């Protein structure tokens, strides 16, 4: 009885949305200290970016090794906007997301014509170019040392403290998941999956392949930019590392480890690669060794990604 209810719930398309909401509501009750909420906030923020990337990689089947570039545009928008242009932070956040989306729209058309590893290297180059601008335009961005970010203020209320950002980022992630779920089940989502399986077949069926790839790219850029803006506002500081190559790789690793094509997998992947380094600090010098080993083992034994692999395992088990 209980089991069948769980299975039905897990089978629902909103299962991942409900799981995220449940975690969001329950975690503060069990978290022993604000430190845990801080980690959870980081997980939510990264998960938001990974969710967008998963729309592109897991559903539309296009790889990007440059998503930290869009993440960085969001982060620097909320830093540079208030500091140099006198734009309020919330408007800078929206402008950053719009700018990232616009850039994706402009660059996307030529880049997305490339396939496989050629697409990977082109997106990698795009990400590097963006992060180089942040490093070199020191007059605007503070150069390699980065710059402080003013707090987000709405009218008389100022968003500060871990608690506040926990709820803002968590709610945004839940909303992002809801949008993604609805998108996947729409004609657009079906077009994404058709392109993922075979571009030729999709084109034959009348899917405008170039257009839908572009839609996925722009969407994922906007998700990343919003997440980047949140991280900058939460940390109160941005540096070019925010937009760096390693961050891009980290996003891809999160998406793949959690499970490509799985909404909840994005959250799990972000959680694993955010929490693990925190846990592994007890190993001091051996931290990287442990992290690398765990990544390899995960990918060998759960190669479809953590969430899809576990889901398949549970389904196979007799009731």
């Amino acid at each position, binding site marked *: 009885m209980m089991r069948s209810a769980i299975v039905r719930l897990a089978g629902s398309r909103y299962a991942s949305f409900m799981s995220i909401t449940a975690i969001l509501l329950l975690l503060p009750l069990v978290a022993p200290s604000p430190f845990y909420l801080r980690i959870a906030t980081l997980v939510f923020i990264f998960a938001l970016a990974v969710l967008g990337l998963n729309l592109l990689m897991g559903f539309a089947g296009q790889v990007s090794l440059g998503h930290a570039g869009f993440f960085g545009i969001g982060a620097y928008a909320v830093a540079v906007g208030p500091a140099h242009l006198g734009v309020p932070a919330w408007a800078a956040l929206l402008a950053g997301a719009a700018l990232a989306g616009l850039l994706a729209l402009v660059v996307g058309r030529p880049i997305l014509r*490339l396939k496989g*590893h050629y697409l990977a290297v082109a997106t990698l180059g795009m990400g590097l170019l963006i992060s180089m601008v942040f490093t070199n335009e020191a007059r605007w961005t503070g150069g390699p040392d980065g710059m402080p970010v003013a707090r987000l203020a709405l009218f008389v209320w100022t968003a500060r403290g871990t608690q506040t950002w926990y709820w803002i980022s968590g709610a945004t992630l839940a909303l992002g998941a809801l949008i993604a779920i609805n998108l996947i089940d729409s004609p657009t989502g079906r077009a994404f999956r058709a392109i993922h399986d075979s571009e030729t077949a999709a084109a034959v069926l009348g899917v405008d392949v170039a257009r839908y790839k572009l839609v996925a790219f722009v969407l994922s850029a906007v998700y990343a930019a919003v997440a980047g803006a949140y991280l900058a506002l939460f940390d109160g500081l941005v540096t070019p590392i925010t937009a760096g190559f390693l961050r891009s790789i980290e996003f891809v690793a999160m998406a*793949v480890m959690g499970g490509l094509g799985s909404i909840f997998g994005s959250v799990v992947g972000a959680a694993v690669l955010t929490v693990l380094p925190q846990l592994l600090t007890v190993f001091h010098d051996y931290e*990287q060794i442990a992290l*690398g080993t765990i*990544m390899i083992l995960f*990918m060998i034994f759960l*190669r479809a990604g953590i969430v899809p692999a576990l889901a398949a395992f549970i389904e196979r088990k007799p009731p």
Partner: protein
Amino acid sequence: MPEFLQFLFSGLTVGAIYALVAVGFTLIYSSSDVINFAQGEFVMIGGMGTYVLAAAGLSLPVAAVLAIVIAVAVGLLLHRLAIEPARDASAVTLIIITIGASILLRGVAGVAFDKNFHSLPPFLGAQPWLVGGAAILPQSVIVLCGAGLIVVLLWWFMNRTRYGKATLATSANRMAARLVGIDTSRVVMLSFAISAAIGAVGGVLVTPIVLTSYDVGTLLALKGFAAAMLGGIGNPVGAVGGGLLLGLLEAFGAGYVSSSYKDAIAFLVILGVLFAMPQGLFGGKAIERL
């Protein structure tokens, strides 16, 4: 003119190293479809290993050979423990595995060696040679000659030996290669060993010019990958051409345009090339690997 020559030589020197990393990428990719992001770590093992062994009292040539042997052993272990068990996994899963391996190797190097920057004494002294008004380090010439020799040896191996021909057959069509009795898994193993050796030799040659440390691998892997793609992946000639071109772009970009944007110039050109020629400069017709 002396300026031009100076940039040319420094570009070729750096480019030779990118070319070696790119050739390593290409070898492993054509035999197994794996993009090995731990390729830069082989260069690091070559450089750091030689430094540490030489510091422990071994003579430089012995230390270098030992470091290369260590790199080959690491390459074989990487294949046996991380790539082979995930043979049927998707391309992106395999990429994450090699990224994990590169983090792991960096961690091991940080513990086993140390986290400082190191150099090796130049093989032919540090007195630069003057050519047409430009100063050329003897070590740069060694790097270029060494890289050239490696490429020639590789060509000879590929076209004149049984194992080389088996590798070529595997990269052309794995199924057909298996049908005519080639042990393709051995071929993949061999390509990991050769790639590791090439990377490590590059690391030994270049360390007297550009310092080495436990974490130089990431940037080299990135540049090598870009070079391989610029040339057209799966094509050794393309890898060498792409590597040299990338090095030259960086050197001339830094010299004539802006040193802080030298990487930007290189990648702008790469993007431009890929937009015009989506298969890279030397890439053949579209080969869809399924």
